[in-house]
C-alpha cells in the first residue's frame, strides 16, 4: 500500500468536498462530468483503503482519527457514495450551481461523519451536513422554503450542539474522545443519544423530516432523504448497539407514521412519513444488537437508501413534469410517463418487501433477529408496520399518481438523465433482491444468512399472513362504514376504507389535541412575540436609542450594585 493512503488528505469525504469547491468554480458544461466522476473516484478511493484507522490529526489538543475504515463504516460510506453518484446523474439537467455544490458538499460531510473515528471529527462533519443540506431547501428560492429551511437548520444545529455538549462531557468523564460504544449510563451518553435521536427522527422529534423534505427542490428532496437520517442510524449503530430502549423507540417509529402517511395528500410528504417508518426497522435492529440484527440494520439502510431514493426520484420526476404531487390532483400518468411509472412500481415493491426485491432480503434479517431474541412485541409491531408500508408506499403512491382516474395531464416522459438514474437504481433494487450475496459480503459481521431458505420463506408467509390478519382485525372491529363491507378486496379497499377510517379516528383525536395545543401555543407565542418586539424590536425598550440620562442612570445603578455587594 502506498504511503499517501494513510494520510488525512486521502479521504473520500475530502474528495467530495474538494469536488464541490471545483464545481463552484468550473463552467456549467463541465458540471455533469464532475457530478459523476467525483463520487466514483471517492468510491474507488474508499475501497483502496484497507481496514484500519488513518488520518490522525492533532486539533486543539485532541488527537483526531479522521478516517476509520471498518465493516460498519465502510458499508455506509459505500452506499452514500453510490447514492451520490445516482443523485448526481438524476440532477444532471439542473442548471443551478448552488444545488450541485450543496449536494456534493453534503454527501462529503455525510461520508466524513461516517468515517469519523472520534467524536470531535463526527461533530465537525455533523454540523457540515446540516449547513450543506439546508441550501438544498433554500435553493427552492421561495419565502416558504426560506422559513422552512431556517426551521430545519435550527433543529439540525440543536442536534449538533447536543452532540458537542455530550462530547465535552464524555471527554471530561472518560478522558477519551474515541467514538465507540457509548451507552446511556452516563450524562454525556444521554446527550449524544438525544443528538442522534433528533437526526434519526425519533417519535416526537421527527417533525422536521416531514416539514422540510417536501419543500426542497426536485433533486434536493431525493438527496436529503439519503444522508442525514441514515447518518444518524449509523451513529446509533456505532454508539448504542444493543440498547434496549431503542427496540421500543424503533417499534413506535415503525407504527405511528403510517396513519399520517395514509391521510396525507402530498405524495412527497407521504414518502417522508414512510421514511420515518423504515428508519424504525433499523432502530429496532440496532436495539436488538446481535450481529444478525446489526447486519440487518446495515443491509436495510443500504437497500432503503436505494428504494426510497427511487420513490423520491419518481415523484420528483412527476413534480418536474406536472408541477404537483398532490394525490388528489394526479392520476393516469402511466400513459405519459410509462418508464417513470415502472420504476416507481419497482421502488414500491422493494419497500413493501416483495420477494425478489431488495426490501425482502434485508428486512427479513431484522425480523428474524427480533424473533430469535424473543422480542415479540417489536416483532408484531414491525409486522403491522409492514402491512402499513404496503398500503401507503406500496400502493398509494404509484396508484394515485400513475393510475386511478385520469386527471388529464399529457406531459412528456421524464428527462433522459432522470430515467437513467431511476433505471440504475431500480436495477440495483432488483439485483439485490435476486442476488443478495455481494451485499451480504460487505456487511459488518460475518453471518451466514440466506433469505431464500424454507424458514425465511415461511417467515415471509407469516408476515403476509399477519398482515392479512391485521386487516381482518381492523375490518371486524367495525372501523369501516357498513357499506364498505361488501366491497371486494381490491387494492383500493385498503387505502379507501380500512386504514383511512382508523387513521381518521386517530387523526381526529390527534388534531383535536393538536388544535388545543396550537391554540395555546399561538396565544403564548403572541404574548411572547409582543413582549419580544416591545423589548428588543428596533423601537423596543432594550434596543432603541436611550437618552444619555437613562444610560447614565443604568451605569450609576450598576456602580451602586457593585458597591453594595462589596460592602
Amino acid at each position, binding site marked *: 500500500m502506498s504511503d499517501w493512503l494513510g494520510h488525512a488528505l486521502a479521504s473520500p469525504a475530502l474528495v467530495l468536498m474538494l469536488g464541490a469547491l471545483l464545481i463552484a468554480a468550473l463552467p456549467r458544461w463541465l458540471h455533469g462530468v464532475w457530478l459523476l466522476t467525483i463520487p466514483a473516484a471517492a468510491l474507488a478511493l474508499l475501497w483502496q483503503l484497507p481496514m484500519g484507522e488513518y488520518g490522525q490529526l*492533532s*486539533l*486543539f*489538543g485532541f488527537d483526531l482519527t479522521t478516517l476509520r475504515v471498518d465493516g460498519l463504516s465502510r458499508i455506509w460510506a459505500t452506499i452514500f457514495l453510490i447514492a451520490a453518484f445516482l443523485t448526481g446523474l438524476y440532477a444532471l439537467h439542473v442548471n443551478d450551481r*448552488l444545488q450541485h455544490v450543496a449536494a456534493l458538499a453534503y454527501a462529503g460531510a455525510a461520508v466524513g461523519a461516517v468515517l469519523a473515528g472520534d467524536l470531535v471529527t463526527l*461533530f*465537525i*462533519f455533523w*454540523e*457540515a451536513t446540516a*449547513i450543506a443540506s439546508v441550501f438544498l431547501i*433554500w435553493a427552492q*428560492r421561495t419565502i416558504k422554503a*426560506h422559513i422552512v429551511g*431556517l426551521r430545519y*437548520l*435550527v433543529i439540525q*444545529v*440543536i442536534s449538533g*450542539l447536543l452532540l*458537542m*455538549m455530550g462530547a*465535552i*462531557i464524555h471527554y*471530561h468523564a472518560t478522558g477519551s474522545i474515541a467514538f465507540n460504544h457509548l451507552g446511556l449510563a452516563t450524562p454525556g451518553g444521554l446527550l449524544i443519544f438525544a443528538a442522534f435521536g433528533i437526526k434519526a427522527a425519533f417519535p416526537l422529534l421527527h417533525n422536521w423530516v416531514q416539514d422540510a423534505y417536501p419543500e426542497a427542490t426536485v433533486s434536493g428532496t431525493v438527496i436529503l432523504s439519503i444522508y442525514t437520517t441514515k447518518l444518524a442510524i449509523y451513529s446509533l449503530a456505532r454508539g448504542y448497539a444493543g440498547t434496549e430502549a431503542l427496540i421500543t423507540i424503533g417499534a413506535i417509529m415503525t407504527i405511528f407514521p403510517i396513519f399520517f402517511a395514509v391521510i396525507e395528500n402530498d405524495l412527497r410528504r407521504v414518502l417522508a412519513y414512510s421514511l420515518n417508518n423504515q428508519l424504525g426497522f433499523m432502530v429496532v435492529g440496532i436495539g436488538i444488537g446481535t450481529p444478525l440484527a446489526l447486519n440487518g440494520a446495515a443491509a436495510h439502510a443500504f437497500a432503503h437508501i436505494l428504494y426510497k431514493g427511487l420513490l423520491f426520484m419518481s415523484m420528483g420526476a412527476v413534480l418536474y413534469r406536472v408541477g404537483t404531487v398532490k394525490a388528489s390532483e394526479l392520476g393516469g400518468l402511466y400513459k405519459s410517463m410509462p418508464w417513470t411509472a415502472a420504476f416507481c412500481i419497482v421502488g414500491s415493491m422493494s419497500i413493501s418487501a416483495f420477494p425478489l426485491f431488495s426490501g425482502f432480503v434485508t428486512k427479513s434479517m431484522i425480523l428474524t433477529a427480533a424473533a430469535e431474541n424473543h422480542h415479540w412485541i417489536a416483532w408484531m409491531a414491525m409486522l403491522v408496520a409492514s402491512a402499513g408500508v404496503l398500503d401507503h408506499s406500496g400502493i398509494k403512491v404509484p396508484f394515485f399518481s400513475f393510475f386511478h382516474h385520469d386527471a388529464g395531464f399529457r406531459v412528456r416522459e421524464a428527462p433522459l438523465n432522470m430515467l437513467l438514474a431511476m433505471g440504475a437504481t431500480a436495477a440495483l433494487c432488483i439485483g439485490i433482491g435476486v442476488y443478495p450475496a455481494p451485499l451480504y459480503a460487505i456487511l459488518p459481521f460475518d453471518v451466514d444468512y440466506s433469505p431464500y431458505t424454507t424458514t425465511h420463506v415461511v417467515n415471509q408467509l407469516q408476515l403476509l399472513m399477519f398482515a392479512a390478519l391485521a386487516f381482518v382485525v381492523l375490518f371486524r372491529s367495525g372501523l369501516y362504514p357498513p357499506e364498505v363491507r361488501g366491497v371486494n378486496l381490491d387494492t383500493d379497499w385498503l387505502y379507501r376504507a380500512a386504514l383511512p377510517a382508523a387513521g381518521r379516528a386517530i387523526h381526529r383525536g390527534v388534531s383535536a389535541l393538536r388544535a388545543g395545543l396550537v391554540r395555546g401555543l399561538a396565544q403564548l407565542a403572541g404574548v411572547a412575540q409582543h413582549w*419580544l*418586539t416591545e*423589548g*428588543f*424590536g*428596533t423601537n*423596543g425598550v*432594550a*434596543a432603541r*436609542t*436611550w437618552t*444619555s440620562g437613562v*444610560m*447614565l442612570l*443604568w*451605569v450609576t*445603578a*450598576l*456602580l451602586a*450594585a*457593585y*458597591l453594595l*455587594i*462589596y*460592602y
Partner: protein
Amino acid sequence: MITAFFNQMPVLVVVVPLLAAPLCVLAHRAFAAWLLYVLASWSAFGMAFLLFVQAKIAGQVSYAVGDWAPPFGIELVIDTYSALVLLLVTGVAALTGIYARKSIASEITIEREYLVFALMLLCLAGLIGITVTGDAFNLFVFLEISSLSSYALIAMGPKRRALLSSFQYLIMGTVGGTFLLIGIGLIFMMTGTLNMADLAERLPGVYDTRTVQAGLAFVVVGLSLKAALMPAHIWLPNAYTYAPSTVSAFIAATATKVAVYALFRFVFTIFGVGYAFGSLPLGTLLLTLAAISMIAGSLASIFQTDVKRLLAWSSVAQMGYIVAGFALASTAGVSAGLVHLLNHGIIKGALFMAVGAMIWRVRASSINDLAGLGRAMPLTSAAFVVGGLSLIGVPATAGFISKWALLSALFEAGRYGVMAVLLVASLLSIIYVGRVIEALYFRPLPDDVSHHQHGEAPLGMQVATWALIAINIAIGVHATPELEATGRAAALLVGGGT
C-alpha cells in the same frame, strides 16, 4: 543598531503611530495621509510581531520610559497576554489601511480625508499604549487618547445621526474614563504607587479597606462601560452603525477588545485573582451580566433592519461570551475568553469590512438594500457567509474554536446555566446571520436600481476582507498555536495573581 532598535521597540510601537498622526495633518493630502497611515500601521504590526516573539522567548519584555527606573518612572511591560492583544490591534489596523482608501473616499469629502487617517493613527496609538503599558495611570491616559479620537471618528460618519451617536458615546465614554480614574485614584491613595507590578505587591496589605473595594468597583464599572458590557452597552449600536464603514470595522474589531484587556489586566494582575474572585463575588456578577448580554444582544440583533446595527448588537452578545470566559477565573476560562477576544476581533472585523464593501456599492445599509447582492458581489457575499458561519461557531472556523473552548471551560467550572445560555445564544445567531444571507442570496436584485454599473468592491477592500477571513479559517483548521499562546497568557494571569 539592530540591538538598539530591538531595545527601543516597546516604545517605538506606540511612538510611530503617535507621531505619524500630526504628520498626516501636516501633509493635508488624502493620499499622503493614507500612505502615512499604511506605513505606520504596518510597521507597528511588524514590531508587534517581533514583540510577541520576544515575549514568548523571554516571558516578559520590560522597558523603562526615559530611563526612569520603575516603579518611579513609567514602565512598559509586554507579556504574552498583552502581546496577543497587541497583535490583534495592529494586525486589524494594518489591514484596515489596505481597506480604507476607497471606502473612506466614498463616504467622506476629500478635504477631510486626511483627518480620518490622522485620527485613526491617534486611536491606534492609544489602543497600543493601553496594551503595552505597565502603569495604571498611563493606561488611563492612553484610554482617553483612543476614546477622544474615536469620538471624532464616529462623528465623521456620513449621516447626521452620527453626531448624536458620537455625542452619546462621548458622554458615556467620559463617564467610564472618569470612573476608571477615580478607581485608580483610590488605589493610589492606599498604596502610593501607580506601577502595576508594584501595585500588585502592595495591595494585599490593604485588601480589607473600603477604599480598595470601592476602587475595584469603580475600575470594573468604568471599564465595563468601555467594553460595552450590559447594561452599559447602549452607546455601542449607534456608534458602530453611524460611523464610516472603515471606522466601524476598525473600532469594532479592536476598541472593546482592548477595554476587556484593560479590565482583566486590572482585575488579575493588579487586584489579584484571589481577591477579586475569592473574597469578592466579581465572578458571579460578571457571569450574570455576560449571560444577560448574550441573550439580550442576540435577541435585539434578530430584530434589526440595518445590517451594521445587526452586527453591532451581535457584538454586545459576543462581548458576553468573552467576559464569561474571563469571569471563570480559571486557566481554561481565561484562555477561552482570550481566544474568543482574538477570534471575535478577527470575525467582526471581517464582517464589518464585507458589509462596508456592500455599502460602498449600494450606498445604503438596510438589510433590504442588500437583496440579491450574492449575484452582483459574489466574493464579498461569500466572505460575509464565511464570517457569519464563524460568528455562529461552525466547525473549521475560528468561531468554533472559541465556542468549544468556552463550553469546555464552563463545563469544567460547573456553570451549566451559562452553558445553556451560550447554546441558546448561538442558536439565535443562526437566525440573525441567516436573515442577511437570505437577503444576499435568495432575493432578486431590484430592477430599478442605478448601481448596476458597479461590479465587485475595489481590490483593496477585497484583499483586506479576505485576509481576515483567511486568518479566521486558518485558526479554525489549525488552532494549536493560538491555543498554546492563550494558554500561556492565561497561566500567567491566573497563576501570577494568587
